[in-house]
């Protein structure tokens, strides 16, 4: 795997391989010495054109645990037009000697442009582009579900038959899109729940069930409920009347949480707004995976960096020669 640009491009085998490698990475994170020498001498650039704390520090921790050197490049406030700035930036990074680029950009498709441009010879990992995809978030969500559902026997397994309900701002959410493609590839069923104003107009073409009523969706006793953040910066666009009404209709309240089976998981990509989309009872329950998701994020990103930054396509040795 040279680049990770979207989960839509991943086959079932590729996705399971990433998750299996992440299992091994996660095991190493339980040890006293967490650092591996794997990417020693390589340089990873975190190229963030958009604000991010969690994703950036998660990638930074992942790269450092693999002994790579990390350069954080915050390009916020750049007023140069997208195509030109990206090209200039990429050529600058190539001159610095970057082996891997983790990019977050407000324009959908920017990582794909960077990967296909020839401006830089580095593995490109999409850390969120516009409203397109956020593949490592979906991978860590799938990893978390797989571990909770299959336990120690997770390796090699998919999510066949698992029913996942994703609630909230679907229209702006690259997490929802990446999760949809990956979960479908792994055999899970996906239901989106949101007010009609927060669903994309093309949602009918997606392989997901769409509901407007959260109580109807929860009555189906899903295995996983994933709450998305309602972004206060978008409140003024009148997608719904006010936060209290949203919370009443689409928030995971204590009452709604109590109707779910004891085995159901509650997930949130963070940062969560308690009292708006999620209640304390749900967020702090033993079925909440929110902190596990953060820890698993480092393991999954280690796996992605490992798979995209090692290996040469040309070489083809036999197992015996390696031994």
């Amino acid at each position, binding site marked *: *795997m040279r680049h990770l640009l979207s989960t839509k491009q991943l086959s079932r085998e590729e996705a399971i*391989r990433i998750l*299996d*490698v992440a*299992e*091994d990475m996660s*095991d*190493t994170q339980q*040890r006293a*010495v967490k*650092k*591996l*020498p*794997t990417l020693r001498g390589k340089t990873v650039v975190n190229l963030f054109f958009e604000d991010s704390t969690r994703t950036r520090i998660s990638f930074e921790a992942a790269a450092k645990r*693999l002994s790579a050197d990390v350069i954080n490049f915050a390009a916020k406030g750049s007023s140069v037009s997208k195509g030109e700035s990206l090209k200039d930036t990429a050529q600058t990074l190539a001159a610095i000697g970057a082996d891997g680029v983790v990019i977050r950009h407000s324009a959908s498709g920017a990582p794909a442009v960077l990967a296909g441009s020839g401006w830089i010879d580095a593995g490109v990992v999409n850390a969120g582009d516009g409203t397109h995809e956020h593949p490592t978030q979906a991978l860590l969500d799938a990893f978390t579900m797989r571990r909770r559902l299959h336990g120690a026997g997770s*390796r090699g397994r998919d999510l066949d038959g698992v029913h996942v309900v994703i609630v909230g701002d679907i229209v702006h959410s690259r997490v929802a899109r990446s999760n949809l493609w990956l979960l479908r590839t792994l055999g899970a069923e996906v239901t989106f729940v949101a007010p009609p104003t927060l669903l994309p107009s093309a949602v009918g073409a997606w392989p997901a069930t769409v509901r407007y009523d959260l109580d109807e969706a929860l009555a189906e006793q899903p295995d996983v409920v994933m709450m998305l953040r309602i972004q206060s910066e978008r409140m003024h666009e009148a997608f719904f009347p006010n936060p209290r009404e949203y919370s009443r209709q689409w928030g995971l309240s204590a009452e709604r949480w109590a109707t779910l089976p004891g085995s159901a998981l509650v997930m949130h990509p963070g940062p969560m707004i308690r009292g708006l989309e999620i209640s304390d009872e749900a967020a702090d329950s033993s079925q909440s995976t929110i902190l596990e998701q953060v820890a698993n994020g480092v393991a999954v990103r280690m796996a992605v960096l*490992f*798979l995209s930054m*090692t*290996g*040469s*396509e040309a*070489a*083809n*040795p*036999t197992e*015996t*020669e*390696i*031994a």
Partner: protein
Amino acid sequence: MTARTVLQQADINRALTRIAHEILESAKGGSDLVLLGIPTRGVVLAERLAAILRGIEPGLPVDVVGALDVTMYRDDLAHHPTRTPQPTSIPASGIDGRTVVLVDDVLYSGRTIRAALDAIGDLGRPCAVRLAVLVDRGHRELPIRADFVGKNLPSSTSERINVRLLETDGVEEVSIES
């Protein structure tokens, strides 16, 4: 391409039985032993050695076998297609202060063992590390040697040594392909 069988099932069993005795002799008993197999076939061989050791030395600890994956410690990751790591499992009692015997099927350049020594360093501090291999085919690129060898097979670098075990391959033999 012709293949010549150099060890058959009975030969492999005899070699492992001898290695088991040698391990016990050099460690003066089995009370502080840990066998770490290098995936994939090294783990199978380590389990077989443990079974033989239990027959000889009833006082052997219960969790004596582990698996040590060295993928993340290799120095040739940039020169080969991306490798998929295999699980590492260390006995719950750890390796600190114990005698670790690394077990692998073929000893060749020594680079796998170099990586394994680094991996062990991150897991703890054994009182000694030994190396047991089923086949030593020569051509070392590092100053590494095995303490316990099933069979020395002087070979040309153009030849291939195939180790096949019942558990992983359905047949049991060591052959040279040239």
